[in-house]
């Protein structure tokens, strides 16, 4: 186990380095650099800018240095001082802007992941044990439809339905007047009446896929002799199903957490733009559109690091639950 753990931990180091390089490339991709953008911004405000000054800014920020030197400065600043660079658009350090939003993204992603399991596992097990029943068909149809709906469309439709049927504006994290008020019971209720939309949106797409996986795995397991033996021993159906085949059928699950996480975070980014949530999505989009590249790059870097850590955790969980994995 320890050997597997060390090996797995060791492997995530090159992954993290590669992710940081990709994020840095994204920062560098747009034509021009920080200095050109900054000068353009000043000119836009009506200042006259000396071309010499542009050069000075470039030297000041080290933008005239070779690319690998710049990368080294950027990454060592992050690792050693937690300094993600300066946001051009907001004119403040990136680290002041991102953590609250990242926290909310992570909270929404993890909650919807848990919600997905809470819904998908019982439904999948039910569908498998009552194969071809009316409810099984209902769930199958739901699964198919959930597969076809992109997240942003689900969010749009939900927002529209909530408005036209319940007369509720569910965009944002809370109603417009609530933001300035201190936390109270009414505020919690208000947040709850908004937060269900992104959770439902993200959980729908995940649930649809997972129900199919659980159902297929369960059907494989239910036909095995050990299940029949358990029944023959006189165990109740509940004890047989939940005690044995479910535990085996859930194995592939743990290994897919790592893949579920990137798609959840992707989904959160785009859903948040539609619903105007104060998570990473809208800020990342804005940063990209305004070429506020340090902000955008930091977001992409941190979101990717989250998913790599998530994959690492899921691999460790898998090793804990399945002896075949840890023996390699």
């Amino acid at each position, binding site marked *: 186990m320890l050997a597997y753990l060390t090996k797995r931990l060791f492997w995530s180091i090159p992954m993290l380095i590669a992710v940081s390089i990709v994020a840095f490339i*994204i920062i560098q*991709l747009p034509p021009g650099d920080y200095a050109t953008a900054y000068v353009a911004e000043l000119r836009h405000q009506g200042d006259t800018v000396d071309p010499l000054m542009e050069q000075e800014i470039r030297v000041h920020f080290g933008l005239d240095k070779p690319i690998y030197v710049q990368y080294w400065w950027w990454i060592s600043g992050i690792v050693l001082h937690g300094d993600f660079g300066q946001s051009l658009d907001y004119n403040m350090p990136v680290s002041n802007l991102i953590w609250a939003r990242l926290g909310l993204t992570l909270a929404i992603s993890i909650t919807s992941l848990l919600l997905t399991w809470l819904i998908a596992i019982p439904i999948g097990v039910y569908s498998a044990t009552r194969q071809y029943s009316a409810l099984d068909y209902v769930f199958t149809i739901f699964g198919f439809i959930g597969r076809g709906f992109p997240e942003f469309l689900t969010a749009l439709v939900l927002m529209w339905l909530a408005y036209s049927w319940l007369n509720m504006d569910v965009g944002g994290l809370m109603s417009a007047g609530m933001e300035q008020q201190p936390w109270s019971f009414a505020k919690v209720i208000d947040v709850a009446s908004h937060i269900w939309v992104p959770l439902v949106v993200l959980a729908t797409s995940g649930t649809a896929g997972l129900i199919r996986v659980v159902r297929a795995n369960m059907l494989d397991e239910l036909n095995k002799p050990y299940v029949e033996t358990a029944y023959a021993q006189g165990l109740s159906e509940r004890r047989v199903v939940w005690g044995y085949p479910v535990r085996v059928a859930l194995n592939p699950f743990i290994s897919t957490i790592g893949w579920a996480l990137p798609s959840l975070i992707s989904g959160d980014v*785009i859903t948040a733009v539609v619903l105007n949530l104060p998570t990473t999505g809208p800020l990342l989009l804005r940063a990209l559109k305004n070429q506020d590249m340090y902000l955008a790059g930091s977001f992409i870097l941190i979101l990717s690091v989250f998913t790599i850590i998530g994959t690492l955790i899921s691999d460790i969980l898998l090793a804990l639950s399945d002896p075949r994995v840890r023996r390699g």
Partner: protein
Amino acid sequence: MTDTTLINPTPIETNDAKEALYRATPRQLMWWRFRKHKLAVVSLCVLVFAYLTIAFAEFTAPYDPYEITEMATMQPPQSVHLFDEEWNFQGPFVYGLKRARDLETAAVIYTVDTDDIVPLHFFVAGSDYLFWGLIPGSFHLFGAEDPDTHIYLLGTDTLGRDLLSRLIHGGRTTLTIGILGVFFSFLIGITLGSISGYYGGRIDAAIQRLMEFIRSIPTIPLWMGLAAALPVEWDPLFVYFLITILLSLISWTHLARTVRGSFLSLRGEDYVLAARLLGASEKRIITKHMLPAMTSYIIAAVTLSVPEMILGETALSFLGLGLRPPVVSWGVLLQEAQNLRVIVQAPWLLLPGLAIVIIVLSFNFLGDGLRDAADPYGR
């Protein structure tokens, strides 16, 4: 008799049928199995219909997708009727709409005018176009006889452009991106996947790590980052091409995994060993012996990855980072329906979303059907 056995080859009733089953080529067997999958067959029909429609977009779309009609902004869809109010048969027609303003809010309201019957004509002369940018023409599949009267079966957008025409022309962009993108990721996926599966060992490990790495990055933020780097002022066609390549650069891993998996299982087969003992070169073994054996799996995997491309394009364009107006694509169309106020006023602007769902589901069902049909050990 042969007809019934073709549809359902498993219960072999007669010698004729038995004979047909034994003599059937693998391709025939696949086709028979595929036909049993009703949903897949329906999906195939839907997709053929959709691609035919977009192939002849200039003809099937009733109007020019860029034509602005100021007096018909945000007009609701007109449904096609066959009978009028008194149940007299009139042939296909729509009721004309009266445009008025709400006296209090000054909002434009349309009311159905049941006296104004606009018959639907087929093959009518309308706005001029260049078919595929080459052949001039002016005939459209349907329309009103009088070129000044417009029929909006799916309504109009905020500028008074016909949504149906825009949907058809947008489909041309979105649906071809799906196919083109899959073509590129197929090239990358099959090359790396087959190298990985055939050679194994260190090369395999390296390619595996690369795939794991790409899978572990959240796709939408990465796509967003890369797409944002494309300058706005570039030629739309070039941007279209680059977006397609961008999408495939990230989503080839799924295909590569399928290819690698089948390579690993085929590598141990006796006929591959036989070919190697007979002195066939590695290139020959891969291309002549192993690839044909997995064609059907690859086709199924390719079909299943088209929706990924389509969803990627729509998501990016929806966010304003992919294709931008004046290019029409389904994502660009949905961009108009981005805020609640517009959706409440004109819910039909969400219809491109319905088109996306239908196409994505069809590709999924078709892929499922193909995969089942390709499995020689399936039922």
